[in-house]
């Protein structure tokens, strides 16, 4: 029931959004006037450089589209890009610069939670909207100017459920990167596994950027779990898959990934039968995003967060148009309705924010690799390959975390939410 209404709302939202875009593009062929600047803080060098560059490319794609469709309030949108160098200190410096020198009303970026959190704290203090795709649970506490377009780690339960339903696994192991999101995912996965009666072997937390994962992989395989959950990104994906393959694992159907797109550019034999969750596989808009990305940059993105970044730019542009103002608080208040109506390329397109400005639900497509391509995957006996994670209580009623808001919460409500701070 609930799922159907959700889908319906997403679809109607998509039609509205497309209508708006179509109308706008008819009205102005392209935006004119002084550009409206928004900031970007993302890792272009350092440990997250691959994800950062993919995310930036997706944002540039979105900016081009927004501008072609008439821009924001009739003016073109422009990104001021700052590198966070993979260091929190550099991220905070960039945040201060964007807020004080460039005086942008909105900053998009993130990826690494250890940087997204302090940046969010700075920007909240300065009342600048911070739209991030970092996913640690702690983001909720930062403040009313923080929005998240990629769900949070709680949603990792979806993969545990998928792996259990698909393989009937009795024991599970996990291979996660050792950073905020990896640790959160490991904790959530372990908790969920125990809830659904699956034995949890251990969580391997690997060091991002290392070149030698054989010790971890040998140990992982030695425990002989029925299925292995992985959370691998960037340049680590190739090495880990290659070292698995070299250790004789030529069939990967026991691996379930939180982020299948990390493996999209690898040789097909490294990913035979691998399953997992994927963002942008559903809907015409998502397909066209993939197409456009490939066209513009000559490659496919290898990072799950490229689509949410694309969405973030569109949501911000829509919010600015709705607010019809460059005042950051008004833009913030327009973020909820903008996201509520916007049809995204990540998830099923439903990008609504809950009271905390976090994604109210996470919709993933179950997918698997076939001939090196990500294909929809259907668990036996199910006609649907879409997994939706929502925050519900024991009776299946959505909790405050799971309810998307069509309008911004009132000031008092927001004040009460963050009164602990």
């Amino acid at each position: 029931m609930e799922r159907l209404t959700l889908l319906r709302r997403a679809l109607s939202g998509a039609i509205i959004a497309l209508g708006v875009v179509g109308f706008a593009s008819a009205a102005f062929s392209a935006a004119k006037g002084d550009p409206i600047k928004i900031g970007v803080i993302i890792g272009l060098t350092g440990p997250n450089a691959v994800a950062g560059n993919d995310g930036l490319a997706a944002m540039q794609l979105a900016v081009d589209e927004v501008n072609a469709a008439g821009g924001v309030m009739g003016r073109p949108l422009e990104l001021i890009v700052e590198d966070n160098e993979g260091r929190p200190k550099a991220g905070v410096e960039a945040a201060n610069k964007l807020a004080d020198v460039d005086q942008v009303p909105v900053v998009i970026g993130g990826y690494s939670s250890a940087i997204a959190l302090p940046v969010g704290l700075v920007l909240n203090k300065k009342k600048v909207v911070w739209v991030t795709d970092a996913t640690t649970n702690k983001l909720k506490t930062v403040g009313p100017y923080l929005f998240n377009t990629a769900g949070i780690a709680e949603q990792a339960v979806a993969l545990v459920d998928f792996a259990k339903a698909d393989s009937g696994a009795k024991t599970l192991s996990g291979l996660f990167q050792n950073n905020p999101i990896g640790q959160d995912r490991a904790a959530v996965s372990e908790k969920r596994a125990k809830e659904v009666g699956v034995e949890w072997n251990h969580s391997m937390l690997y060091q991002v950027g290392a070149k030698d994962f054989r010790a971890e992989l040998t140990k992982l395989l030695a425990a002989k779990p029925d299925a292995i959950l992985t959370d691998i990104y960037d340049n680590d994906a190739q090495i880990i898959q290659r070292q698995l393959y070299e250790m004789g694992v030529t069939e990967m159907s026991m691996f379930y990934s939180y982020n299948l797109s990390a493996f999209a550019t690898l040789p097909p034999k490294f990913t035979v039968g691998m399953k997992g969750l994927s963002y942008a596989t559903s809907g015409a808009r998502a397909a066209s995003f993939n197409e456009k990305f490939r066209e513009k940059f000559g490659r496919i993105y290898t990072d799950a967060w490229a689509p949410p970044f694309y969405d973030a730019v569109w949501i911000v542009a829509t919010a600015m148009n709705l607010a019809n103002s460059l005042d950051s608080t008004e833009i913030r208040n327009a973020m909820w309705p903008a996201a509520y109506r916007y049809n995204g390329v990540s998830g099923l397109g439903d990008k609504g924010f809950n009271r905390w400005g976090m994604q109210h639900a996470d919709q993933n497509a179950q997918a698997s690799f076939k001939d090196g391509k990500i294909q929809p995957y259907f668990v036996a006996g199910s006609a649907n390959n879409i997994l939706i994670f929502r925050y519900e209580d024991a009776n299946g009623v959505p909790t405050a975390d799971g309810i998307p808001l069509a309008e911004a919460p009132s000031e008092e409500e927001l004040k009460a939410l963050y009164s602990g701070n």
Partner: protein
Amino acid sequence: MNIVQVLVNSLITSAELGLIAIGLSMTFSILRFANFAHVESAVLGAYLVYLFNVTLGWNFALSILVSTLILGTVGLALHRFIFRRFANSGDITPMIASLGLAITIRHGIQAIWGPQHVVYDYEVLPGNKIFGAFITDPQIWILITAVSAMVGFHCLLQYTRIGTAMRATAANVDLAQACSIDTQKVILLVWFIGTGFAALGGILIGWDTQVDPYLGFNLVIPIFCVVLIGGVGSVYGAIIGSLIVGFAQNFGLAFNYAPLINLFGLLDLGDRFDLPAAYKPAITYMAVVLILLIRPTGIIRKEVS
């Protein structure tokens, strides 16, 4: 746990660390400063092979040879244009200069080739199965190269005139000069061999894993740990250091500590207590702390002449 596999993994890890550590240890003892750019020349070498092998389509072995020689020459150029002027500036100034150089090389590579990894034109295959353990051809090559390097450096240092000159220069530059050893020539040679060999190490690691701009950045601290555990200036020290780190990393994760801890009756941990994989980097650092506290100048003590 497949103990043979752990053993093989340990050997490969040791060989990969040792390949670069041997050259670093040698250059460290003669140039007398911590050269942080040493490992970046390994990455540069690996990217040059990518350029020749993949972009230009050359033969793989030829690419390796040319790239190693080019990097050796780059080493000479670095000495001539940058590090020569630090001869009388102590060890801290050239160290920070090499840090600046490392930043430049690393990000220069990223600006040219982008942050995404690249791989050579080589078909990855499942490893050969030996006693139940998998080992691939590149890994065998790495082992062979590491052992040949070990033997080669030993012979170079022990049985050739230039090797004697190198040992003398490493022990005491002034004394070596007094014995009419052309220390400038020795230093040039060390730059050539050291940088060239680093490149070879980088290429082989890149062949076994992948090449990305941060290959060196992620290796530099473990390799310095290896060199100092073994003792600066000793090829054998570098070998022992890399064996210690390689075996500790692999066996440290594979080992079940429960019987050991329960044996002392301290805790009851059940029948299994593994070191969490998140602490794998800590194994190297623990080794450094323990070994240097016991032997403050590394395992192989530098002979006093």
